C-alpha cells in the first residue's frame, strides 16, 4: 500500500465504482449477446426474478422459505460444531494426554474439505436433516476447536501457576482460568466457523431432497434456469454478508465490554 490513506467517503465511492463497473460489464456481455442470454441473464432479469421469488414458489417454496430451511440446518451444524469444538479444544489445551491423542487424527481429518464429506454424510446420516448438518459441521468445526485450543494453550503462564498454587482442581481451572482467558480467541474462531459453515451450505444441500437455497439452485440448474441459479447465489452471498456483519458487531461489543472489565 502506498499514498495517503483514503477517507471513508472516498473508499465508499471507490467501492461503488467497482460495483458499477462489475454490473456494467455484466450488462454489456449479456445485452450485447456476446454470452447467450440463456446462460447470462441481465442484472435486471436477475433482480426481477429475485423479487418474484420472494412471493411465488419455485421447487416447492418461496425464496424466504428456502432460506429459512437452509438457515435451520446451518444453525444446527454451527451450534453442534461450537458445542463440541470449544469444550474439546479447552480440554486439549489443559490435558496433554488428550492433546497427544486427538491432534494427529484432527490434523488428518481437517484437510478433507466439507464438500468431500458429502457422499459419506449421505450414506451415514441420510439426506434428511442429519447429512447436511454433518457437512456444515465438518466446515465449521476446525476453527472452533483450533481457536479454543490455542486460547487455552497461550494463557499467561503466571496465571496457570497462580491457579495451581491456590490448589485449583482441573475442572475449575478450565472453567475459571482457561475459558475466560481464551474468550477473545474463541470468539474469533466462532466468527470464522460461522463463515465456513455458511460456505459449506450449498455442498450440504446438494444431497437434500426437500427445501433450501442449495436445493433451489440444483433444481433450477436441472431445468436450465440460469436466472434462478443466480438468484440463489446472490441470496447466499447476501445472507453470508449479513451473518458476518452481525457477528462482527457482536465481537466488537464483546471486546468493548471486556475492555471495561479486563
Amino acid at each position, binding site marked *: 500500500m502506498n499514498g495517503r490513506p483514503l477517507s471513508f467517503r472516498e473508499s465508499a465511492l471507490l467501492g461503488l465504482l467497482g460495483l458499477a463497473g462489475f454490473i456494467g460489464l455484466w450488462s454489456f456481455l449479456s445485452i450485447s449477446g456476446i454470452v447467450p442470454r440463456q446462460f447470462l441473464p441481465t442484472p435486471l432479469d436477475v433482480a426481477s426474478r429475485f423479487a418474484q421469488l420472494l412471493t411465488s414458489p419455485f421447487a416447492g417454496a418461496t425464496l424466504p422459505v428456502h432460506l429459512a430451511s437452509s438457515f435451520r440446518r446451518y444453525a444446527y451444524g454451527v451450534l453442534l460444531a461450537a458445542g463440541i469444538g470449544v469444550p474439546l479444544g479447552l480440554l486439549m489445551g489443559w490435558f496433554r494426554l488428550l492433546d497427544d491423542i486427538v491432534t494427529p487424527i484432527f490434523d488428518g481429518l481437517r484437510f478433507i474439505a466439507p464438500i468431500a464429506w458429502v457422499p459419506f454424510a449421505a450414506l451415514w446420516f441420510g439426506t434428511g436433516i442429519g447429512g447436511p448438518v454433518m457437512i456444515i459441521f465438518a466446515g465449521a468445526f476446525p476453527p472452533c476447536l483450533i481457536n479454543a485450543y490455542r486460547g487455552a494453550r497461550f494463557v499467561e503462564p503466571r496465571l496457570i501457576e*497462580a491457579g*495451581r498454587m491456590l490448589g485449583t482442581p482441573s475442572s475449575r481451572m478450565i472453567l475459571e482460568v482457561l475459558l475466560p482467558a481464551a474468550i477473545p480467541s474463541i470468539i474469533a474462531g466462532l466468527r470464522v466457523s460461522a463463515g465456513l459453515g455458511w460456505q459449506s451450505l450449498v455442498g450440504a444441500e446438494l444431497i437434500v431432497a426437500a427445501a433450501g437455497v442449495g436445493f433451489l439452485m440444483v433444481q433450477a440448474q436441472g431445468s436450465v434456469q440460469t436466472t434462478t441459479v443466480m438468484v440463489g447465489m446472490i441470496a447466499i452471498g447476501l445472507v453470508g454478508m449479513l451473518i458476518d456483519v452481525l457477528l462482527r458487531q457482536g465481537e466488537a461489543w464483546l471486546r468493548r465490554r471486556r475492555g471495561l472489565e479486563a
Partner: protein
Amino acid sequence: MGSISFRNVDKVFGPATGGVKALDDINLEIADKEFVAIVGPSGCGKTTCLRMVAGFEPATSGVVSVNGRAVTEPGPDRAVVFQQFALFPWKTVRQNIDLGLRNKNLPIGERNDLIASALKLMSLESHADAFPHQLSGGMQQRVAIARAYVLDPVVLLMDEPFGALDAQTRVVMQEELVRLARRNPRTVLFITHAVEEAVYLADRVAIMTRRPGRIKEVLDIRAIREAEGWDSHARIEDVMDLESFVHLRTHIWKSLREEKDFQHV
C-alpha cells in the same frame, strides 16, 4: 510449623549434559516463622530457588523440602506472591481471594469471614468488588498478598513482590509487610535484588553469586535488629539512617560488588 530446606540442590536448564547450570550446590535451612531474604544479581537463580519450593520447577539433583517433606508439586500450603501480581483479570478482588478458599471446600460463611479479615488486613475493604485493572499496582499487590495470606499457608513465598511498584508505593508496602510479619510471624522466603529491602525486612539475608548461583554468605540480621531496636521506628527511612543498618547494607553491597568485579577480571 513451616521449615524450608535446600540440601545440595543443583539446577540445570536444558539437557542434563551441556545445559545451563543455574544453581550449584545450594544449602539453606529456614526455620519455622523465620523471614529469609535471598539477594543476588539478576540471573543468579534466586527466583529459581523460590520456584522450586513452590513446586513449579523440579531440582536437577538434591532435595528441596518443606516441613521435612520433599516438594513435588504446587499447593496452597506454599502460597506465592508474584512480581507481576498474577491476579485473574476477570475476577473481582473478592473472587480472586475466594478462589483458594473455594478450592479448600470451606463453607461460604467461613469463607466470607476469612475474606473480610484479609480485606481488612490489607486495607482493601472499599475495593472488594473492583476488578484488578481498576486498581493501582500497589493495590493489586495487596490483593495478591491477601490472596496468599488468606490460605493460612505453611510458608509464604514472595518473588520480588515490590519490584514492579514505584518507589513511594514500594516503601509503604515494605513498612506494611514488616508490620504484618512482626504481628503475625510466619515462614517467609523473600526474593529481591534490592539490598535495603532485604536488610529491612528479613531475619537473615542470603547472598547469592552470579551464574551458576551459589550461596556465598548468610547474614543474621535479627540479632542486630533486636539489639538496635529497629522495630521501634515506624518509618523505613529512620531505620535506614541507623549506623547498624548502614553497616549491614554496605557489607552486602560490597559482597555483591566483588561478584560483579570478579566478572570483569
